[in-house]
């Protein structure tokens, strides 16, 4: 019988961003993105929850060593995005609108290559205490 367990690691980072589509004129950007399009940026305390799912290893009892998972998230995600401007300071969002949806996809892809393929990975990202996204859906 397969018994899968999910383990979760919670990390956080603070960043500035703005939502803007450079292919649109200013009035379209304002209409679609509202206050989030303001030119001088705004920011959030992002709360990141990473879920890893699989069968506990019979030798360790772990799905994945949580310390290693934490180190990977800090190294690959937090050190890249914390106290940064997502639009200006990161390669990932040079040509990609840094919505919560896109940030979750980017974080997933940064982590996916670091975690055993046999384990499922899900990223939950809170942009505010009231807005959050999940990827994969």
């Amino acid at each position, binding site marked *: 019988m397969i018994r899968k367990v999910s383990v979760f690691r919670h990390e956080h980072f*603070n960043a500035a961003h703005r939502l803007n589509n450079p292919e649109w004129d200013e009035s379209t950007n304002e209409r679609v993105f509202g206050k989030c399009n303001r030119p*001088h940026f705004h*920011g*959030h305390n992002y709360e990141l929850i990473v879920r890893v799912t699989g069968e506990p290893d019979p030798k360790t009892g772990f799905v994945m060593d949580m310390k290693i998972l934490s180190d990977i998230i800090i190294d690959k995600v937090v050190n890249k995005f914390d*106290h*940064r401007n997502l639009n200006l*300071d990161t390669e990932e969002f040079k040509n990609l609108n840094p919505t919560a949806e896109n940030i979750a996809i980017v974080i997933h892809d940064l982590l996916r290559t670091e975690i055993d393929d046999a384990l499922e990975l899900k990223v939950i990202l809170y942009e505010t205490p009231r807005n959050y996204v999940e990827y994969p859906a």
Partner: protein
Amino acid sequence: MAIILLCVNFAPLIKIMVYLTRVEHFNAAHKLYNPAWSREQNDAVFGRCANENWHGHNFELFVTVKGDPNPDTGFIVDAKMLGRIVKDSIIEKLDHRNLNLDVDFMRDKMCSIENLVIGIWNELKPLIPTGVELHCIKLVETPRIYVEYYGD
């Protein structure tokens, strides 16, 4: 020598003081950077908070007033009206803004939460309805950092 005795009944002067807090929130960018210092000195003192291109937070704002409940309404203040005052005078100026560049009452000040909470106090103080007194403003920058200001 005339001795004047004043007899005062103090009983009606005893007030019941109640504190009411209105919670609002805003999201904003800022940086901690002293333009009189070198980049190296700013980095040494403010660390990642000095990042040239800003960073940001979800701020939570707690505005506490104190007063005696009105016998007709039971309120010390209409909480909805207090919320409207905070939204119109503070949140409108701060939400989805750059605190260093966009906020008139933070101009030429270091953009720390300490200075921000004092600025918010000074903006709100004259707008507080009669009958209540502004008691405390608490400003939460992250789930792990907040400041309180009592006006003194």
